[in-house]
């Protein structure tokens, strides 16, 4: 939501949409500049993946490489956050509140996080090469701002995409006009894992 606020704050350099092969708008797709990669930010602001009601909030967090992420636990129970992703393998064994130290994501790639106690808790931290990325809204639209004029290669990523981001690459010329880029992503059907809220719930 904070991104969408930013989308409409200034005139975008690139705008477009992401849709499925069936034409349906794709929400929560991340469109980012793959190349050329500008100098990474020296100290990107710390980000937060909260744990509320046995859910990661937000479920998808795109960040610039080098960003530190805090994993505060706002539930009354312990969580055990981990990731086996080669991009960032880490483990925050059983803790409550703010006990866990922030984790710095220093490699580009998708990091799938889970909780060892709650199988259904799942989240993705997408570590991106630069701060030039945007997330599609519910109508599949995105807008990239603050891009200096030049030629860029844009890619689209989605959790269910059958394509690797580089396979979606599109070249775009950024100038005075708003460049328009549209992506079509073949998606695998979503397979939500049932969550259990409350101690007496049945699977």
């Amino acid at each position, binding site marked *: 939501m904070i991104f969408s606020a930013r989308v409409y704050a200034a005139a975008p350099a690139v705008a477009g949409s992401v849709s499925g092969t069936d034409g349906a708008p794709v929400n929560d797709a991340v469109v980012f500049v793959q190349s050329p990669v500008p100098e990474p930010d020296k100290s990107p602001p710390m980000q937060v993946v909260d744990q509320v009601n046995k859910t990661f909030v937000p479920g998808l967090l795109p960040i610039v490489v080098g960003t530190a992420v805090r994993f505060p636990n706002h539930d009354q129970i312990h969580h*055990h956050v*981990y990731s*086996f*992703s*080669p991009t960032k*393998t880490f483990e925050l064994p059983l803790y409550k509140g703010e006990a866990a130290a922030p984790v710095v994501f220093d490699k580009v790639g998708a990091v*799938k*996080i*889970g*909780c*060892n106690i709650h*199988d*259904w*808790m*799942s989240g993705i931290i997408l570590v991106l090469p630069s701060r030039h990325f945007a997330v599609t809204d519910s109508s599949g639209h995105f807008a990239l701002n603050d891009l200096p004029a030049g030629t860029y290669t844009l890619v689209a990523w989605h959790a269910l995409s059958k394509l690797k981001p580089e396979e979606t690459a599109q070249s775009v010329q950024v100038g005075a006009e708003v460049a328009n880029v549209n992506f079509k992503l073949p998606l695998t059907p979503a*397979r939500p*894992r049932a969550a259990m809220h409350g101690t007496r719930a049945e699977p």
Partner: protein
Amino acid sequence: MRWWDTRSLRARIFIAFSVLILAVLLATLGLTQLIVGRDTGRTLSRELRTTGQVFQSLLRERAIRLQTNSTLLASDFALKRVFATHFDPSSYDSETLASAGLSYRQRIGVQLVWMTDEKGTLLAASPGEGRIGQTLAGFSPLKDALQSQAPATAVVEVDNELFQMVAVPVLGPDVIGFLMLGQVIDDHVAERLKQDTHSDVTFLTDSGVLASSWPESTRNDPQLIRMLPEVRQQNPRLLNMSGERYLSLALPVVANLEMPLYVLIQGSYDRALAPLHTLQRRIAIIGMIALAGALVTGIILAGGITGPVRLLVNAMHEIPRGNLRHRLRIERNDEIGFLSRSFNEMAAGLEEREHIKDTFGRFVSRDVAEAVLSGRVPLAGERREVSILFQDIRGFTALSERLDPVVLLRLLNQFFTEVVAAVEAEGGVVKQFTGDGVMALFGAPQSRADHTERAVRAALGIVTRLASLNVLLQNNGAAPLQIGVGIHTGEVVAGLIGPDERIEYGVVGEAVNLASRIESLTKELTATILVSREIAARLGSEFVLGRTALLPVKGTSRPVEVVEVLSGPLPAP
């Protein structure tokens, strides 16, 4: 039927009893065989189906347990961590993964632990190390688990062994691999099923037996495979397994094999029928005892019936032999008792009649006796017309003085024998012996229309027979006998006369006296045969009559006309 008819009553009772009991016995055995046999078949079929259900539910239970165990194992964080190492070839720890597999096999008592990556490539296998690196993406249950990203189970064949296998995803938090556990379905499983259900269990496909509760020798019998097509209809069939009949039911097992998998469930039909055979043996023994009992009862019963019957038959045989004194001593109230009482009454009646006839015969001729006994003579008395003949030896007094008494009686008896013969030859009855003469009746007790002629012919017969006797006497130097015969006819009263003990048949009336008088007239007229006018009037022309005289008779006022009879038709020989 002829044969049956010629059997004795005793034999018939025996045979009837035996046939009846045998029939009941055979019917009982047959019905038992039919009903219990059918019931046994049904019960056994039901048991086989139950075993089938037990097996299916056992498979289900095992699958559930296996899946639960697998899911729990797959949730182990340490395992997840080891699994996750495969994402990075540099840190991939295949040895730890393999040893974890070995450890899990022991931990939960499964025979197979396989681990694949999230795409189905085998990472670790115990057993089956040789397969590592192969993809199992098309191999159930992994195929289904890959598709559903959820646990899946299947019955599969691995190295000629049947496994129940489960594949569960390892989550980290997305699927980072699959854990596959397999529990073998082998002879032990079949044995355990057999222990629980008493049915032999065999797992087989068209190409061979995979596991069985049968011993090696029986299971390798090729007929087990051959008969599969026969029994795979869901109806049980009887199969011969090494000399014993087995009701066999083949049920399909959902499995991921190249050929359909069946579980063949077999229960011994012969053993199931054993209680029936025991029952039948007992029924047969009871039947034989019943048969023996029936035979004994039959003998006693038949003896009870035929014994008295034989006594009756023997008694009956006594009657024609003349033994009328024979009596039966059977004191019963049934038909036999009735029959023997009837026999006794009959014999008593016969004896009495014979006694009467004997007694009678001494005084009267058999004719009279029979006529009286047959009831033809009204014993109360009746009036009827008869002819009365009196005969007398002339000069008997002088003769009796002259002759030796013994000789005299012999002479008399000889003479009377002839007289009786002559009278009876004409159907007359010698009623009385008067010392030297007889009185004879014609027309009583048996009624004869021609009694007058009969009487005259009898008189002529006496004369003729006397002539022969006289020739004999003369030849012996004795003087010939001379007789006189008087005959009259008239109405008399005939019947039984005298007190009870000495009762005899007789006639009374004027005609009797007159006949006697006429006889006494023969001396006066020196005639041999004199008849009254009433007689003479009735004689035919064949009789030659002589003189006629009207003579006064003692005791009557009127003179009587008498006619001499000289000769007549030849007497009956």
